[in-house]
């Protein structure tokens, strides 16, 4: 790659500024989490006597094990199902482009513009009617549906960019559709799928509005809802709140790091040349 010197220097400086700005609030969370639990932390300063025990307290007070289990259950229901059905639909709309696909695309794209808040009230009464209210299913089903517009749109955007010669060549070779799909399309779609996996995982893990409204018992919600454990009407501890928040984001970071190696390798390969 050919790049000029000034470009490299300006680039690096901007990047470092962006990285520092990104990290400050996170460091501030950590420094706050280590202050004595009954104190109101001030500014960004490393505590003289770091209270690592806050993490233990937050873990116990927040029933974090149970919440992580509950979150994991919701994620394991939502993400794989969404990935499979969105990939199939994305391939149909972007790769096969059968009759009616454009109308279908419009229908899905319109869904992209529906804010969760616009649906939350009807979703509540729907869950009540289905008898799923106050169970994890009340969040699982709507989330799969609500993720469809983006997921289908995202996968279609990938399949639309796959050179058509590839699939046509496969068909001329006499490959059946599913063979073509598994041997040619799916491997090519992996970067798009892994990116989507990460996004769906994070969006589910961090879902706040749906669990808060649809599941009455906070222990059956996602971990993001656990933050409300520390926010009583007349009782809250900002150090514990931050300790809890940090505990909660660790699994998400781990999953991201785990997927990321594949993810980046795949996306750097770029498009296959016809």
């Amino acid at each position, binding site marked *: 790659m050919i790049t000029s010197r000034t470009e490299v220097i300006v680039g690096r400086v901007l990047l470092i500024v*962006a990285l520092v700005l990104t990290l400050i609030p996170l460091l501030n969370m950590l420094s706050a989490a280590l202050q004595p639990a009954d104190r109101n932390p001030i500014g960004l300063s490393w505590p003289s006597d770091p209270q690592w025990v806050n993490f233990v307290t937050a873990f116990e007070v927040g029933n974090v094990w149970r919440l992580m289990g509950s979150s994991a259950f919701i994620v394991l229901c939502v993400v794989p199902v969404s990935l499979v059905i969105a990939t*199939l639909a994305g391939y149909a709309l972007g790769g096969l482009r059968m009759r009616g696909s454009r109308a279908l695309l419009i229908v899905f794209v319109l869904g992209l513009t529906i804010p969760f808040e*616009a649906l*939350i009230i009807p979703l509540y009464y729907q869950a009540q009617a289905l008898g799923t209210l106050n169970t994890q299913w009340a969040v699982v089903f709507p989330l799969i549906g609500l993720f469809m517009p983006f997921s289908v749109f995202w996968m279609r955007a990938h399949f639309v960019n796959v050179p058509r010669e590839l699939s046509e060549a496969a068909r001329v070779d006499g490959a059946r559709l599913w063979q073509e799909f598994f041997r040619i399309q799916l491997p090519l779609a992996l*970067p798009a799928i892994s990116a989507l996996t990460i996004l769906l995982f994070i969006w589910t893990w961090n879902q706040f509005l749906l669990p808060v409204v649809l599941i009455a018992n906070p222990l059956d919600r996602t971990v993001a809802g656990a*933050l409300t454990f520390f926010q009583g009407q007349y009782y809250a501890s900002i150090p514990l709140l931050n300790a809890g*928040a940090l505990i909660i984001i660790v699994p*998400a970071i781990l999953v991201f790091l785990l997927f990321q190696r594949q993810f980046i390798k795949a996306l750097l390969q770029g498009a296959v040349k016809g």
Partner: protein
Amino acid sequence: MSTTLVSNAPRRAAARAAARRADLTGWLLVAPALLAYTGFVIYPLATGIQYSFYDWNGVGVATWVGLDNYATVFTNPNLLGAIGNSFVLIAFFTIIPVGMGLVLATLIRSMRDGLALRASQTILFLPQIIPLAAAGIAWSWMYAQTGAVNQILGWIGLEAITRPWLADYGTALPAVGLIGSWVLTGLCTVLLLTGIGKIDTSLYEAIRLDGAGWFREFITITLPGLRQELAVLVTLTVIAALSTFDIIYTSTQGGPGRATLVPGLLIYRIGFTQSDVGLAAAFGIVMMVLVLAVVLPIQRLSRASDQ
């Protein structure tokens, strides 16, 4: 939809049969996604529209009120103010993150694969991994009188402008907006990187051999190559701006006064605290139409690009 032209009739018939089979397969492949979507988006949307014509407390008997709820949405200054605030947030949720994302993605692209690149990417993406609710909490005392923002301003000699940012009528909304910028910049960067990765590197080599600088390269190659991704991101971030809830819920609750009140928070309050389900549903529908009005032109652009 045209398939390769062939000359003789039997092969044309076979091709047509294959096309019909492909049509059927296509619909079968879409069916599960369509089912989930219809059941949990379209159906609730229809019931939401239904509720919006009623005065209903969510439990008792509902009374038909026609368009009264919509009239309230468009005449109540508090509700209109909330809509106005959400449009201001677009600047912070869309323009800043997408702009920053383009710059950063371009910069990271020119970095060699290695620890530094991977670390940068990971760090930039971190805010997206944090629950928005936690981001709201973390930032609300970053912005406090004794918080880190004022502390840092003090270090660089800007004591004069320190203030409780979220409690100041002039700065509360931009301050909340910047939380959104912080969260979304990483997402934009990583998704745009995926897009840049798909652009043929020989194009870059060619234009560089042509003697073009980074700016021309950016305008003539990177930007057009990213049209799809940009459309996705602008759509996503505009929706995030107009439907902000978690951040406001955990930072300002709409205050001070109604300076940061947004439709999402009002819908939650009207629907669940005030138990005025009809009005909340109507507000939700209006919100959706507004999002549609902003996002539809963007979709049109991206559709034009892949014809």
